[in-house]
């Protein structure tokens, strides 16, 4: 799936790298024992360490280290047994320390890979450059007072994993697939909840363009803090088109940080020149290097769950699913588990079809997640059994399914209650056929005169006569016989 921008002077290719800040799921902060709960009253989740009070010392949180390693293993990345915390210095109202404790030269996780599952079923590999641990900043609120900015330090010091990709993506679609895959992996690992709308996963996109066929890397712009997959994709597209326009007008792109304005669908420069970055990184003198041995890493590795890529392969091998179906089913591990529950002892392709086409559609409509599904795996399984043992037809099953979605009931009960059991006795079906033939002698003549296609019309009429309950295969056979008489 290529994304080529057709310019006046020729075709342009887009080069994209993403930096994702993923909040670690921990009870307390990276270097302090204050809580990390989202949405608390302002400044109630702040220790003196987080507030940057003089003389306070940071002490590292063991879960944050473990989850960074765990995430690194999930990205098949090199784990660095020795890493170093550094101070990234900048001045901003929501950064009371005056620096962010981050990792610079020696991050905890090095190079890895992530597989993109594209909508057409194809796969692509994107390199991971690094993953490092760092502190989040506080929150500035600009709209509570006419001439003041309000600062809440609750988020200050919360642990983030900054996950940096290589500039390996070439289209907004690939960037979207990358974010969805990364979110899926951290959710499988349970190291980050992946909620972009609550800010626990945030994305900065580095974008540049180049003429198709060239392998140069031109000046990139960084689009900061976009908070949904869809907006990241839109922002990249707009930014790439802006670069093409600038180059084709004979201009140059300046390296800068930009914001994506979702209401105007444009990016614009964010920081004025006087804030030109000069972070003056240096090793944090308050923190010794972070060290652990191979045994520690192996212990974490032994607790890893089956990850989406492996699960997808297994689904394709064990259930003979297509790459697309398997890919869709493994995005959330809850969905994968639901599918496996239903598929056990049943035709997996039929089950996949029900889950993807019917269940997902119904859940989307109601805005529910699979965990809140009104149709339990047990009940969906029963419904599929009712079709396969010919108690109901596929068409009736869709009706029953709708009732299951609305009322959460057992399909057996619905079928009994509404008298939907399929008619498989020849008697009533033949009666219906005779009735239809008597009512439309003209059509019968036409059919007998060679208009074979009318069989479809006859089937439809007979089904209508029986309230859709007749077994369609039997209707077909009996009709052909009767019409041939």
């Amino acid at each position, binding site marked *: 799936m290529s994304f080529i921008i057709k310019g006046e002077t020729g075709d342009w290719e887009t080069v994209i790298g993403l930096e994702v800040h993923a909040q670690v799921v*921990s*009870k*307390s902060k990276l270097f*302090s*024992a*204050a*809580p990390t709960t989202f949405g608390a*009253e*302002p*400044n*109630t*989740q*702040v*220790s*003196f360490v987080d*507030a940057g009070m003089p003389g306070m010392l940071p*002490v*590292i*949180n*063991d*879960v*944050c*280290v473990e989850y960074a390693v765990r995430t690194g293993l999930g990205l098949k990345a090199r784990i660095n047994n020795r890493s170093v915390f550094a101070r990234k*210095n900048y*001045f*901003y*109202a929501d950064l009371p320390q005056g620096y962010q404790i981050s990792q610079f030269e020696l991050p905890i996780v090095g190079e890895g890979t992530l597989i993109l599952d594209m909508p057409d079923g194809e796969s692509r590999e994107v390199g991971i450059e690094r993953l490092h641990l760092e502190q989040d900043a506080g929150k*500035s*609120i*600009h709209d*509570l*007072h006419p*001439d*003041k*900015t*309000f*600062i*809440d*330090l609750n988020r200050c010091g919360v642990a983030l994993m900054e996950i940096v990709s290589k500039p390996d993506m070439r289209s907004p679609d690939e960037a979207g697939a990358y974010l969805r895959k990364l979110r899926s992996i951290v959710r499988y690992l349970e190291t980050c909840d992946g909620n972009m709308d609550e800010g626990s996963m945030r994305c900065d996109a580095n974008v540049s363009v180049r003429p198709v066929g060239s392998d140069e890397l031109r000046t990139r712009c960084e689009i900061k803090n976009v908070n949904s997959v869809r907006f990241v994709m839109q922002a990249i597209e707009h930014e790439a088109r802006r670069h093409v326009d600038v180059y084709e007008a004979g201009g140059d792109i300046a390296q800068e940080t930009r*914001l994506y304005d979702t209401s105007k669908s444009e990016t614009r420069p*964010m*920081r004025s020149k*006087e804030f030109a970055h*000069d972070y*003056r990184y240096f*090793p944090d003198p308050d*923190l*010794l*290097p*972070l*060290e652990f041995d191979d045994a520690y890493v192996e212990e974490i590795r032994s607790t890893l769950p089956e990850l989406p890529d492996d699960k997808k392969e297994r689904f394709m091998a064990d259930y003979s699913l297509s790459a697309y179906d398997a890919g869709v089913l493994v995005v959330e591990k809850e969905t994968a588990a639901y599918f496996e529950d239903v598929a056990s002892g049943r035709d997996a392709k039929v089950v996949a079809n029900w889950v993807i086409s019917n269940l997902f559609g119904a859940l989307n409509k109601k805005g529910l997640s699979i965990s809140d599904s009104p149709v339990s795996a047990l009940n969906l399984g029963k419904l599929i059994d009712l079709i396969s043992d010919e108690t109901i037809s596929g068409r009736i099953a869709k009706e029953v399914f709708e009732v299951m979605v609305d009322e959460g009931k057992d399909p057996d009960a619905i079928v009994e209650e509404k008298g939907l059991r399929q008619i498989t006795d020849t008697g009533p079906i033949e009666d219906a056929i005779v009735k239809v033939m008597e009512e439309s002698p003209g059509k019968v003549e036409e059919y007998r005169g060679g208009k074979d296609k009318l069989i479809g019309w006859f089937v439809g009429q007979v089904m209508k006569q029986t309230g859709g309950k007749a077994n369609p295969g039997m209707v077909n056979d009996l009709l052909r016989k009767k019409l041939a008489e």
Partner: protein
Amino acid sequence: MSLDDARVQRIAVLARIELAQDEIGPLGKELSGILDWIEQLQEVDTDAVEPMTGGADQSLRWRTDGVEDGGHAAKILANAPEAHEGFFGVPKVIE
């Protein structure tokens, strides 16, 4: 190594220190002196020496993840020049 006035001014901006015009020259000389001293240290060949993080044989202390702090917004805000409704109030800093 000598620092010119513009460089001194830039360092002052990064450090958020306001300098009077007549302070820049003398400060530049002092800073240059420090850099000269560092240059002198750099004459020592340390290629074969592992960088040290301290004089004592210590390793980083880890803490068990748990909540034992927070819940004292009033103390956090005690030194704030301005506080409103539990927030720090600062001059408008909108991009």
